[in-house]
C-alpha cells in the first residue's frame, strides 16, 4: 500500500458522547442562514434584500475584493432577515425555507471532459468556490491562483469527530466526480490523507498517504507539513471531504445540493448520532428534543470542542462544520479545585490521578479551570504539535508583532485548528487560537 506516515506527538481527548453509526434524516428546517462571519477576512457585499424570493443556488452575497467569489443560498424560500452587529457588520442572512421553491440550473457534465476554466467558472458561479481553502492562512482560495497541490484529509481526529467512512457510504462515486473536477485545477497532485481503515483507498487520480497517530494527525495542515510543506510564496488548497461531495453533485446533476451529514455529539446529547440536514441549518433543528434535560446550563458548539463556535439555539451552524457538540457549560465555582486528587479530571499532564486510573471517556465542560497567566512552562505545546515548529516562539513573535520572525518560524504552515491542542493543554490558559489568527491577519495585511 501507500506510504505510512507515523506521528507520535499529539493528544487524543476521549470525550463521552461519540456518535453511533446511525443516520437520521432531519426534515427541511424552517430557516437556514449564511454567515459572512464564517470566513475570516471576508468583506461581504449583499445581493439580496429582505423579503426577496430566492431559489437554491441564488447568489446571496459576494466578496467585495474578489467579486467572482459568490456565496449562494443553500435552500430556497424568502430572505427573512439580515442580522447585523456592531458597525452594521452583517452577521447572518436568514432564509425562511419553502420546500416548493426551485433550484438554479448549472451545467451538467463529466468534469473529465471540461477544461480547467470551465470547471473554475462553474464552481465560482454555483457558490462552491468558498469550500476550497488555501494555505497559507486558511482563507478562501483565490480564483486567479494556481495551487501547487490540493490536500484532502479524509479522516478527522478531533474529539468526537464524525467518521467519514460512515458518512461516505454510497457516496464514493460522487466523491470521485468531485476529485475529477478538482484535479483539473492544479498542475500538481491531489493528496488524500487516509487513516488505517479507510474507504477512500480506491479513489483514483489522487496520491494516497496513510497517517497514524493521535490528533491532530487528521488535520490537513499537519498532513501538508509531512507530505510537502508550504514555504513562503507557495500556495496549496484544502477541501473537506463532504465539500468534495457538493462539487461532485454539482457536476453530476447540474444543481447545487447542500445536503450535509453532521454528527451530533457530546455528553449532553441524549442519543449521539448522525443527522442528514443541509448547510447552515438552524441550531434548533438539530438540538431540539435531542439534548438531556439538566439543571445546569449547556454549551452548544457548531464544530468540535477544540475549534468550534459557541452557538445559541436561535443561531445557525457554521459553513464548514460537519459536527455539533454539546457539553456542560461548567460556569460553577469549584472549592479548591486545583488541590483535588482529580480522579475524574482529564489532563494531558501527569498532575492528576486520572493519569493512573484512565477512564474510557471523560465529560469535560467549558470551564477554563484556572486564570490566565504569562507563559511559564516551556515544553507543553511541543508535545501536542506534530510539526517542526516552535509554537511558543511563534506565538511570542506574534505578540511582539515581529513579522520577520513570524515568517521564519512558520506562520504559513499553521492555522488555528493545528494549534488548538496547545490551547487545550496550556497551564497559563493562553488564547493560542485567537493570537494565531491575529498573527495571520497581520501577515495578510502587511504582506498580502
Amino acid at each position, binding site marked *: 500500500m501507500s506510504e505510512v506516515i507515523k506521528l507520535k506527538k499529539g493528544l487524543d481527548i476521549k470525550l463521552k458522547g461519540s456518535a453511533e453509526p446511525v443516520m437520521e434524516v432531519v426534515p427541511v428546517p424552517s430557516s437556514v442562514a449564511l454567515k459572512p462571519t464564517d470566513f475570516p477576512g471576508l468583506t461581504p457585499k449583499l445581493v439580496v434584500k429582505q423579503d426577496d424570493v430566492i431559489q437554491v443556488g441564488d447568489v446571496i452575497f459576494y466578496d467585495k475584493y474578489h467579486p467572482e467569489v459568490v456565496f449562494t443560498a443553500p435552500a430556497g424560500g424568502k430572505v427573512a432577515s439580515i442580522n447585523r452587529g456592531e458597525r452594521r457588520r452583517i452577521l447572518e442572512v436568514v432564509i425562511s425555507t419553502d420546500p416548493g421553491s426551485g433550484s438554479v440550473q448549472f451545467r451538467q457534465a463529466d468534469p473529465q471532459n471540461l477544461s480547467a476554466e470551465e470547471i473554475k467558472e462553474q464552481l465560482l458561479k454555483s457558490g462552491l468556490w468558498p469550500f476550497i481553502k488555501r494555505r497559507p492562512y486558511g482563507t478562501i482560495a483565490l480564483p486567479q491562483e494556481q495551487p501547487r497541490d490540493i490536500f484532502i484529509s479524509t479522516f478527522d481526529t478531533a474529539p468526537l469527530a464524525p467518521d467519514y467512512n460512515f458518512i461516505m457510504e454510497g457516496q464514493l462515486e460522487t466523491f470521485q466526480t468531485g476529485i475529477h473536477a478538482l484535479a483539473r485545477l492544479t498542475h500538481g497532485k491531489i493528496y488524500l490523507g487516509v487513516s488505517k481503515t479507510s474507504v477512500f483507498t480506491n479513489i483514483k487520480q489522487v496520491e494516497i498517504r496513510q497517517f497514524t497517530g493521535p490528533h491532530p494527525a487528521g488535520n490537513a495542515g499537519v498532513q501538508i507539513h509531512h507530505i510537502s510543506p508550504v514555504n513562503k510564496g507557495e500556495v496549496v488548497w484544502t477541501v473537506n471531504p463532504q465539500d468534495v461531495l457538493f462539487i461532485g453533485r454539482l457536476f453530476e446533476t447540474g444543481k447545487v445540493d447542500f445536503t450535509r451529514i453532521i454528527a451530533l455529539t457530546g455528553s449532553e446529547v441524549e442519543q449521539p448520532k448522525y443527522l442528514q440536514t443541509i448547510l447552515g441549518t438552524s441550531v434548533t433543528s438539530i438540538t431540539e428534543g435531542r439534548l438531556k434535560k439538566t439543571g445546569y446550563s449547556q454549551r452548544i458548539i457548531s464544530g468540535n470542542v477544540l475549534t468550534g463556535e459557541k452557538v445559541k439555539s436561535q443561531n445557525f451552524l457554521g459553513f464548514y462544520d460537519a459536527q455539533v457538540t454539546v457539553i456542560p457549560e461548567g460556569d460553577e465555582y469549584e*472549592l*479548591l*479545585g486545583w488541590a483535588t486528587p482529580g480522579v475524574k479530571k482529564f489532563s494531558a499532564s501527569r498532575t492528576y490521578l486520572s493519569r493512573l486510573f484512565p477512564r474510557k471517556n471523560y465529560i469535560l465542560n467549558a470551564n477554563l479551570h484556572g*486564570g490566565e*497567566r504569562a507563559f511559564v*512552562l516551556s515544553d507543553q505545546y511541543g508535545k501536542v504539535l506534530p510539526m517542526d515548529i516552535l509554537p511558543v*516562539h511563534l506565538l511570542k513573535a506574534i505578540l511582539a508583532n515581529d513579522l520577520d520572525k513570524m515568517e*521564519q518560524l512558520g506562520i504559513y504552515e499553521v492555522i488555528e485548528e493545528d494549534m488548538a491542542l496547545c490551547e487545550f493543554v496550556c*497551564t497559563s490558559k493562553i488564547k493560542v487560537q*485567537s493570537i494565531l489568527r491575529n498573527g495571520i491577519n497581520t501577515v495578510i495585511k502587511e504582506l498580502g
Partner: protein
Amino acid sequence: MKFLKDFFEKTEPLVQKGARFHWLNSVHDGFFTFLFVPRSTSQTGSHIHDYIDLKRTMSIVVLSLVPALLFGMYNVGFQHYKAIGELVSTGFFSLFIYGLLKVLPIVVVSYVVGLGIEFAFAQMRGHEINEGFLVSGMLIPLIMPVETPLWMVAIATAFAVVFGKEVFGGTGMNIWNPALIARAFLFFAYPAQMSGNAVWVSMGKTDVPVDSFTGATPLADIAAGNVNFSVADAFFGLIPGSIGETSTVAILLGAAILLITGIGSWKIMVSTVAGGVIMGIILNLFAGSTGLSPESAAFFAMPFWHHLILGGFAFGAIFMATDPVSAAQTEKGKWIYGFLIGILAILIRVINPAYPEGMMLAILLMNTFAPLIDHYVIQGHIKRRLNRAKLSA
C-alpha cells in the same frame, strides 16, 4: 463552604474599580480564586481546557519541596544537639521540634514579605496575583543558613521579589531565579554574616559547643584542605549546610515527584548532573599536576561523585536549574543550559576557594545566558526551515 463563597461573591462589587475597597481588588481575587476555581468559561478558541493550571503546577512543586523542608528541620536540630554534645540523650521529636521552631519563622517571613509585595504589585498593575511566589517563598528558606537573621531574610526576599521579578513584569518575565537572587543578595551584601562557620549550625547564646565542633560545612572544610566527612552522612543529609540542601535523599524524593508529574524538566536535571560528573572527572585527572597548593590538590582529587551529594549541587540541579521561566526554553537549549550549569558549578566550587558554593553562581550565570542559548537554537531551527524551502524550490 457556601458561606465563604457567598461572602466573596457579595463583597466582589465592593472591590471593583471606583468602589470603596477597590485597593483590595487583587487581594480579594487572590483569596477567592485560591479557595474556589473561578466559574469563568472559555469565550474564544478551544471550548475545553486541561484541568491543570498554575496553582496546580506550583502546588506540586511546593509538595516536592516538603521532604527537603522536613528533613531540613530535623537536621537543624540534629546539628544543634550534636554541636553541644547532647545528641545521644535527645529524642527524634526534640530534634525535629527544635528545628521546626528555628525554620518556621524563616518560612513565615519569606512568605509574608514576598506575598505582601506580590499583592501590592498585582494591585498596582491591575493584574491577578500570580502563583509563582508560592514556590520562591519556599525555596528561599531552604537555601538559607539556619542562623540567617530574620531581618536579612526579609530584606533579601524583598530585593528578590522587586528586583528579581517584578521589575521585569512578574512571574514568567523574570531573567533570574528569584530565590537565588535572594541568596546571592545576602551572599554579596552581608559576606561577613553569610559565610564562615558561624551560620550553618544553630547555637543559642549560652550553648557551649563540644571541643571538636567547627561549624563548617564539609565543602568549606575540603576547601581548607581537610577532607573528612562521611559519605553516608552527606547522602542522607546529616551535615551542616543550608536548611534544605543537605539531604540528597530528600531531594531525590522531590525529584521523583517532579519527574512523575512531568513538572520538572528531566532534560535539565540529567544534563546538569552530567555536566557536574564530567567536570568532576576532569578535575580528578588534573589532581596530580604540579603547581597546585596542597588544599587544591585534595579538592581536585576528591572522587567526582562526591560533588553530587555535597553542598547545593543536588538541590540546585533539581529545584533551581529547572525553574521553567529562567531556564532555557527550547528543548535543545535545555541540554546545553543544564550541562553548562553542571560544569560551571563544580569548576567554581573547586577552582575558587572564595566561593565553595558554586551552584548558586553557576545557575545565575546560566540564567543570564539562557536567552542567548535559546537564540542560537532558534536560529538553527530557522536555518533548517530555510534550507527546506530552498530544497523544494
